[in-house]
């Protein structure tokens, strides 16, 4: 099925880069590097130049911390979305939020996608997406409360749980009026999951692809990579790309990333090896 993300449509075989742009002073990877608005706008311009089709703008870090209410979240993202829209008319703008109130405001400012990283915590978020003609990312958190860490969470079958929950969420979104072409599912690595869960989801990501819904993966520099390789944030790119390669081979469609260029190269190389993409330019031995 064609993937429709607000103002843009993408072919079935397109694999898309969703670049993370934090409007936070405290996110784990960039530690506030784009907290200042001019820095955030520069980051958007850079990732667009790097070839990202989507930016994912977030006003609240995922981990526990100072409480950010809806008014503060809106102050961080709504005007910023409007500015990005003005500067990049064709860019797909996603906003990472679980609140319907914030969702409505950002869609009015020009957002195309609501990335609900907390798996439907606010039941009205799908209505906000439907009203605006926006796409929605349906994630699996195992029922976790927003901004909590997993603690002694276990599943009978984490992949079955991810499929059941995200597909149910997707059905709820379609029932609310979201275009069926605009519903994406995401197993949400490390959300409500320990490292073993995230590894299993990665290993079996093809089962999510087999649902027929486009799959988003958010692997970038996460703790499951860090714990797998015993590496701190800042040294997890290679591990991230290895996991990315497996997801690309299995057919995941959207990659939520900090490093656009490296991820694009990884996905392109996988698709080229698998014969889904031609080499950029081949002449060696063929002259």
């Amino acid at each position, binding site marked *: 099925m064609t993937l429709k993300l607000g103002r843009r449509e993408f072919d079935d075989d397109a694999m898309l880069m969703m670049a993370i742009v934090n409007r936070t002073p405290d996110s784990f990877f960039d530690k506030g590097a784009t907290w200042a608005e001019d820095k955030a706008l520069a980051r958007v311009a850079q990732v667009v130049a790097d070839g990202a089709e989507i930016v994912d703008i977030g006003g609240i870090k995922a981990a526990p911390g100072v409480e950010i209410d809806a008014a503060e979240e809106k102050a961080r993202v709504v005007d910023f979305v409007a500015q990005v829209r003005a500067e990049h008319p064709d860019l797909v703008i996603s906003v990472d939020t679980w609140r319907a109130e914030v969702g409505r405001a950002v869609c009015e400012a020009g957002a195309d996608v609501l990335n609900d990283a907390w798996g439907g915590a606010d039941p009205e978020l799908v209505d906000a997406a439907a009203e605006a003609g926006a796409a929605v990312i349906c994630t699996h958190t195992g029922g976790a409360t927003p901004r909590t860490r997993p603690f002694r969470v276990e599943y009978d079958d984490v992949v079955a749980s991810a499929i059941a929950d995200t597909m149910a969420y997707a059905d709820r979104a379609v029932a609310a009026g979201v275009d069926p072409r605009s519903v994406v599912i995401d197993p949400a690595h490390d959300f409500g999951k320990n490292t073993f869960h995230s590894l299993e989801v990665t290993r079996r990501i093809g089962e999510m692809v087999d649902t027929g819904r486009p799959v988003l993966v958010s692997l970038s520099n996460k703790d499951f990579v860090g714990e797998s390789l015993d590496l701190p944030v800042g040294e997890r790119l290679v591990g991230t790309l290895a996991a990315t390669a497996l997801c690309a081979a299995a057919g995941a469609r959207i990659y939520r990333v900090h490093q656009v260029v490296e991820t694009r190269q990884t996905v392109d190389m996988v698709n080229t090896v698998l014969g889904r*993409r031609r080499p950029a330019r081949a002449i060696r031995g063929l*002259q």
Partner: protein
Amino acid sequence: MLVPGVLALLPEYAGIADPVAELRAACVAALGSLAGAGSVVLVADAQGERVARSLLGAAGVAADVVPASNAADPASDPAADPEGAAYVVVANGSARRGEKAPGHLDERARGFDEALGRALRQVDAEHLTRLDRELADQLLVGNPDGFVTLGRLLGGGQGAWRAEVDFAADPFGVQYWVMRWTCES
């Protein structure tokens, strides 16, 4: 007509960007002039024949395409081929024209190609039929038999030949020519 047997011209070896776009355009334009020919005789080795058939298809040439009866034996008589046929020779110069060339650098390559190119432009049939085959093999010349046959064809005409050069370059250390000869009698 002369085109080089460059495998990068085949669709199965296409990348996203075309490294031989200019050469391809020259070949297709030149071969397009054969659209009205009754038949096309190919003077080519097996790879060259694949390249030529693909280019003829791209050029929209619907004529019968047959391999030359003398392709394997340049000493045989080209007159054995269909009357009024257009000939397409698939051959190219040395693949040892530089350090990055497929066959690395051979200092003799440029002189060899220069003399060969001159003979092609000046329709020096004798130079072509007497091509130094041993040296041509050492210089990784593409289908040297083709040049010998071309010499026999150009030497056998009744009138004056006019040579046109559509493309002459060595973008990857291999000498290519796209050329047409028409008999003006």
